[in-house]
């Protein structure tokens, strides 16, 4: 039964998904599950080999997301100002460009400093920077970039008040579908939840605590800050996990300031701490 249909499809050019669904409908029930398009097969193979995620080189994020940003999914990173959201976004871009992949940053807040981005490890030659003025333009630009084959697109909505509001949920669903269709990772950084049900995973970065060097009568020097990143939602997993993220200002370009010495370990990772463990520890110390 499938043979004449296959012939028909081969003779008459059809859109691949339409051809696949027609073939599936023509096959017996037991065989339908075994039919895969090349794209689906490639995705399944990569997922089974553990290559389905896009490592961000931010260990906290990679642990919370089980290996990194999932390809073909929308991940939303929510964080108020000074929560480390922008740093995580840039770290993901740095990781992607360091593997030789091209990446795009849709920067609604227009907050990228190219010199600082290069210092953070982003290969600027592989980064496309798009600076829309309104949310509607940002969404349209993101969709275009996903459809053109960028493996990682980061959309940063900047600081509130957002220019153009939150956007309607259908547009976020549309973005998620486009990411799925093109097997691209989409990371959305926003000051508050915007993507609704479209996000496969939602991370929340709480406001960080600044760490200063010096103090008292001696001059202070900003050393970094600690933020807590929490998994608010993840399809197929229980939410609630959280981890401490420490960010340093080492090597940050600073006007007329010589580079600080001595060099210290760049990333001091606090041990993973479960939120629920706090009351127990307090009870133990008491």
């Amino acid at each position: 039964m499938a043979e004449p249909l296959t012939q028909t499809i081969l003779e008459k050019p059809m859109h691949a998904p339409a051809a696949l669904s027609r073939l599936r409908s023509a096959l017996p029930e037991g065989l339908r599950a075994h039919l895969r398009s090349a794209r689906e097969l490639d995705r399944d193979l990569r997922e089974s080999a553990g290559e389905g995620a896009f490592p961000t080189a931010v260990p906290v994020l990679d642990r919370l997301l089980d290996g990194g940003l999932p390809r073909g999914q929308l991940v939303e990173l929510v964080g108020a100002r000074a929560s480390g959201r922008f740093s995580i976004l840039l770290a993901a871009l740095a990781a992607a460009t360091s593997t030789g992949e091209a990446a795009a940053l849709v920067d609604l807040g227009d907050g990228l400093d190219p010199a600082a981005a290069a210092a953070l490890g982003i290969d600027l030659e592989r980064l496309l920077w798009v600076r829309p003025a309104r949310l509607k333009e940002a969404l349209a630009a993101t969709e275009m970039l996903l459809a053109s084959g960028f493996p990682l697109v980061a959309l940063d909505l900047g600081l509130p008040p957002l220019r153009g509001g939150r956007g309607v949920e259908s547009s976020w669903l549309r973005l998620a579908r486009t990411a799925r269709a093109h097997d691209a990772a989409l990371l959305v950084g926003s000051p508050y939840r915007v993507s609704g049900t479209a996000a496969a995973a939602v991370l929340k970065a709480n406001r960080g605590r600044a760490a200063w060097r010096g103090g008292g009568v001696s001059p202070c020097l900003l050393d970094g800050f600690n933020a807590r990143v929490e998994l608010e939602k993840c399809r197929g997993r229980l939410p609630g996990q959280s981890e401490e993220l420490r960010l340093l200002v080492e090597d940050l370009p600073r006007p007329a300031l010589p580079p600080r010495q001595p060099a210290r370990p760049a990333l001091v990772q606090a041990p993973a701490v479960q939120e629920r463990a706090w009351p127990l520890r307090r009870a133990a110390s008491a």
Partner: protein
Amino acid sequence: MPRIACLYLPLFPLAARLRSEPELIREALAVVEGNGNAARVVAATRLARAAGLRPGLTLPQARALCPKLVARPRDADCERAAQEALLEVAEAFSPRVEDAGEGIAYLDADGIERHYPGPSPELEMGRALMNAAEAASLPARAGIASSKLAARVAAGLPDPPVIVPAGEEAAFLSPLPLQRLAPEVDVAETLERWGVRSVGDFARLPPSRIASRLGRLGRELHSTARGVDPRPLIPREPPPAFHEGMSLEWPLVALEPFLFVGRAALDRLCQRLESRGFACQRLELEMRLEPDGFQTRSVVLPAPTRDVKTLLTLVRLELEARPPGAPVAGFTFVAHPDRPREAQLTLYGPAALSPDKLASTLARLFALLGPDRVGSPRPVDGHRPERFTLVDFSPPPPPETRREPRAGRGLLAVRVLRPPVEIEVLTNGAPEEPEAAPVEVRAAPHAEEAKRPRVEGPVKVASGPWGLEEEWWADDPAGRDYWDVEIAGRGLYRIYRERATGAWYADGIYD
């Protein structure tokens, strides 16, 4: 002996018009030259010829014969584009092509027949030439011979392609009437009086007598009749740009009808670019305006593309931004070609972006956001953190094998506030003292209307100042004192005081 192929487009003005308006192919169409009732028919479609139309009739006479006649004036733009398209078809077969004007192109066919194995390779090549012209919407005929004249005569004969074997040009031309040889020469009447009717009759006359009676022209004509064509093939230089356009039957005042007509022209233009392996780097639109005007628009593309939809969107945006201001009577698209970006696919490394897709995406982003908002960022020499530059996004090819991501450095990034947010700062000393540390930050009075992030609150910790001086020799020097401040409950900011004015700004958030 050289072999020359001729591509000949019969009824050239009509063929050029039908290439631009293919929907008229089944109509009784006549192409006329001249104005008003004095216009004369130059060429007509088969349907019109069946009604009795022939070249030379005036337009009223033609309309009397065929009341449903569709008349179109000769269009130089259409004819130029059709001629270019014909030459491009020829150039797809041979690098040496001569532009003989008015629907005639000669090409050096020496050795090309080797690409067409079979019992009659030249015949196959002639068919391939005609098929390629047909694909470019040009119903051209082909003829192949050892001289240009014989090839041209062969292309004009029915049942093309006609192949004249090498050395048999004289025998081929001999039975043909003299008009085939050179219908415009003024010796035709003299020859008629001599009783010479065919090319063969003329070729049999002694050459010395012909030269003494008819002069140099006669001698050359006689050589031609004997199959000797001394004119060599003169290859043309490929033009630097591709043209496609037409004169409109009625001047257009609205954008949508113009884009409808323009889309067809862009389609043809992109097909021509594709056939040569080019893409459009810059598109110019030349418009002739009613009653007497001319405007040119230029659309620069971020990367070479031949995506019609993208080009049309850019033209639409350009015309919406700056309307021509008068009805458009004709237009020409001029595409400046460039090689499209190429990418080598890899089996083991990360996938490269498709150059075609990337080019059209960049062009659409340019159209959506403007050229100053899309690109690859680069730092600028200097210390001012708000400065940057954008260059064309042209990523290097990905590595041959997939690399592991570089280990994260866990560095804190600054989100730049562009432009800087104006703030008011209370310090623990005199405001003019550079060492006076901020103790409280307040939002500027008009911050609410400007819809900028509010930066305000008591300062918990302040670190600084870091001095910045730049371009003291310029008209716009920078002298700033930077501070890192932690504002209670609102985060970490980078603020600075302008030394010249004493004004305070927040230009970044540690985020």
